[in-house]
C-alpha cells in the first residue's frame, strides 16, 4: 500500500497564495485515496510557524491542526538514538527522513535540499510530481471551493 509522508512545507503549502503550489499541496491533503502520514515533529513545526512566525488566528490554527489529525496518521517523533542511522547534510531533517523510512512512506517535500538528503533512504517527490504520479485530482481554488459549501 502506498503511503505518503508529508513534510511541513506541504502542510503549510496548502495555505499559501502561490496558486500552483497551493493547489498541489491542498489536493494532496484533501484526497481520500492514498494514506497520509506525518510525525509529531512536523505538527509541532507547523504550529510553531503559524503561531510564532506568522501570528495566524489561534482558533484557526487549532482547527487546522485538528483537521490535519483527522486526515493524517500522526506517528511519534523518533528518538535521537533511532534516527542516528540517517546521514543528512542538515541534521534537523533526520527525524523526518527516519519517520518516512520507518513507516515505509514516500516522502513528499518541496524542499530540494531535504529531498536530496532523503533520497538515499526513501523515495522522495515534490508535490506536483506526486499529483502527476498518483493521478490526484486537483481541487478548485479556495474561493470557489468555499463558495461550494453554501450550495
Amino acid at each position, binding site marked *: 500500500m502506498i503511503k505518503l509522508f508529508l513534510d*511541513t*512545507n506541504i502542510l*503549510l*503549502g*496548502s*495555505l*499559501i*497564495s*502561490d496558486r500552483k*503550489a*497551493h493547489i498541489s499541496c*491542498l489536493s494532496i491533503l484533501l484526497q481520500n485515496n492514498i494514506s497520509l502520514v506525518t510525525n509529531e*515533529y512536523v505538527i*509541532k*513545526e507547523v504550529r*510553531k*510557524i503559524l503561531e*510564532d*512566525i*506568522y501570528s*495566524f*488566528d489561534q482558533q*484557526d490554527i487549532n*482547527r*487546522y491542526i485538528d*483537521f490535519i489529525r*483527522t486526515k493524517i496518521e500522526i506517528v511519534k*517523533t523518533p528518538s*535521537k538514538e533511532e534516527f542516528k542511522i540517517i546521514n543528512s547534510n*542538515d*541534521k*534537523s*531533517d533526520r*527525524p523526518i527522513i527516519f519517520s518516512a523510512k520507518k513507516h515505509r512512506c514516500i516522502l513528499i517535500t*518541496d*524542499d530540494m535540499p531535504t529531498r536530496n538528503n532523503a533520497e538515499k533512504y526513501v523515495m522522495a517527490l515534490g508535490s506536483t510530481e506526486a499529483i502527476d504520479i498518483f493521478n490526484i485530482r486537483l481541487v478548485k481554488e*479556495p*474561493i470557489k*471551493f*468555499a463558495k*461550494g*459549501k*453554501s*450550495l
Partner: protein
Amino acid sequence: MDNASVTARLTGKEIKKIDSLVTAGLYTTRSDFLRHAAMHLLREEAPEIPDLFLRLHDQAKQKHLTKDKILKDIHTVRQGLYEETFGDD
C-alpha cells in the same frame, strides 16, 4: 443562494436502486434521494473545512506568504526545534 438544478449522469443500475427506494417510500422523488445523498456527504466531509481554508488562505495572502518564504522560515524554525527537542549534537 437560491436553489439550483444540477444534472447528474448515473448508471441504469444506480437509477434502478434509487427508484426502488423511492417506491418503498423512503424518498419522495429521485431528486429527494440525491439531495439527501449530497447532504450526507457534505456532513461527512466536515462542512466547516472550506471556510477554514478560506480564512487561512486570506491570512496567508495578507502576510504575502509565498512558497519560497515558507521554505526559508521552515528552515530557520526547524533548526531551533531540533535543538529544543534533541539538544545539541
